[in-house]
C-alpha cells in the first residue's frame, strides 16, 4: 500500500473566483484515517485556507457531509483506504448552493423543517405529573425516523430535489412522519396540508436514493411512500364520507 493518497478537493472562493476549481493535495494514507482526517491534515499542514464543516467526528452531529468520489457521505465515517490507491474526489454536497469550498448553504432545509411542525402537538392537556405511557412497540413505530441527524446526504442524493428545489424533501417528510407515528402526538391533521401539497409527498417519484444515502438507517423513501398511502386513503374517505372527514 502506498503511503500517501491524492485528494482532489473542490475549491470555491467567491471573492476571487466565478466558479469552483479543483485543488490537488497529497496526504498520508493511514489505515485509520477518514477522509476528514485527510482534510484536517491539509488544513493544518498544507493550506489553512481550505474551508469545510466538521465537529463530532463520530457520525452523529451531521455536519461533515460531502460528496466523496461521487457519493454523498459523512467524511468522518468514510475511510481513505476505501479509495486506495486514489485519487479521491472530495466535493461539496450536490443540490445545494456552495458558500465556499466544501461548505454548502442548507438554510433551505431549515426553512422547510418548521413547516412540518416537528414537535409534539397535543389537543388534550398534559398529564402534569408523570410521563405519557408508550410501550416499546408504540415506540418502534416511529423510532427509525427519529434517528435523522439532518446531515443532508438525502437531499444531496435526491434528483427530484435537485431539479425542483421547492420539493419538501426526504428528511423533512421523514421527521413529519416521526411525529405522526408517535403515539403521544395529535398533530397529524396539522401536518397534512404541507405534506399533501404537490411539493410535498406527491413530488417524490420514489427514486430511493435518499434511503440508500442515509448513514443512520432512516428510510425516508419508505416514510414518503407510507405517507402517500395514508394521505390517499384519507382523501378517499373524505370523498366517500364528506361529512365525517377531518
Amino acid at each position, binding site marked *: 500500500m502506498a503511503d500517501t493518497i491524492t485528494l482532489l478537493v473542490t475549491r470555491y472562493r467567491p471573492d476571487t473566483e466565478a466558479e*469552483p476549481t479543483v485543488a490537488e493535495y497529497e496526504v498520508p494514507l493511514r489505515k485509520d484515517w477518514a477522509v476528514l482526517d485527510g482534510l484536517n491534515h491539509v488544513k493544518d499542514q498544507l493550506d489553512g485556507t481550505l474551508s469545510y464543516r466538521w465537529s463530532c467526528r463520530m457520525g452523529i452531529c451531521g455536519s461533515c457531509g460531502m460528496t466523496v468520489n461521487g457519493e454523498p457521505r459523512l467524511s468522518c465515517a468514510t475511510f481513505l483506504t476505501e479509495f486506495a490507491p486514489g485519487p479521491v474526489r472530495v466535493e461539496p454536497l450536490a443540490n445545494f448552493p456552495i458558500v465556499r469550498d466544501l461548505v454548502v448553504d442548507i*438554510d433551505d432545509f431549515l426553512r422547510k423543517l418548521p413547516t412540518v411542525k416537528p414537535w409534539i402537538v397535543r389537543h388534550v392537556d398534559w398529564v402534569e405529573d408523570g410521563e405519557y405511557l408508550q410501550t416499546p*412497540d408504540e415506540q418502534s413505530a416511529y423510532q427509525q425516523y427519529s434517528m435523522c441527524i439532518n446531515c443532508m446526504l438525502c437531499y444531496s442524493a435526491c434528483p427530484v430535489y435537485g431539479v425542483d428545489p421547492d420539493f419538501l424533501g426526504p428528511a423533512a417528510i421523514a421527521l413529519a412522519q416521526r411525529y405522526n407515528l408517535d403515539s403521544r402526538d395529535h398533530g397529524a391533521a396539522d401536518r397534512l396540508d404541507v405534506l399533501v401539497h404537490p411539493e410535498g409527498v406527491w413530488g417524490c417519484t420514489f427514486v430511493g436514493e435518499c434511503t440508500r444515502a442515509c448513514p443512520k438507517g432512516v428510510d425516508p*423513501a419508505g416514510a414518503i411512500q407510507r405517507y402517500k*398511502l395514508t394521505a390517499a386513503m384519507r382523501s378517499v374517505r373524505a370523498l366517500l364520507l364528506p361529512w365525517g372527514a377531518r
Partner: protein
Amino acid sequence: MTATRARAYRQAVPRLWWLRRRSYLLFMLRELSCVFVAWAVLFLLLLLKAVGNGHVDYQRFLDWAAKPWVIAVNVLALAFLVFHSVTWFNLAPKAMVVRVPKQMLALAPKAIVRRLPEGRVPGWLIVAQNYVAWVFVAAIVAGLVMRSGS
C-alpha cells in the same frame, strides 16, 4: 436569521443527470418502463380490434406481429415489463406496513411471533405474495388463451 448569499455558487443539475450514476440510470429505466406499459395496452387493443373485425383481420394482425421489427419491439417491451413487475413488487412493502392483529399474534406460535418484528408482516412475505400472485395470474391468462385455441 440569514443574510443574502448572492455569491453562493448554484450547482446546476446537468440535463443528463440520470446518466451520471448507475442507480439514477436504473431509476430512469424503471420510470421509462411505463412507455412499454402503454405500448402493451396499445398492442392488446390492436389485437382485440382485429379479433372484433373477424378472422381476416385477426390473421392480418398475426402476420403484422410476426414482422421482425414488431417482434424486436415486443422483446424489448417484455424486458421492460418484467423489469417493471420486479421493481414494483419489490418496492411494495415500503408503502404498506401490514400489522398482524393483536388477537392473531396471541394465537400464533411463539416461534413465528418472534420472526415478526414489532408485530408487522415482514417485507419479504409481502414481496413473496406478490410473486405468487404474478405466477397465478400469468398461469390463468396463459391457460385461458391456450385452451381457447385448441
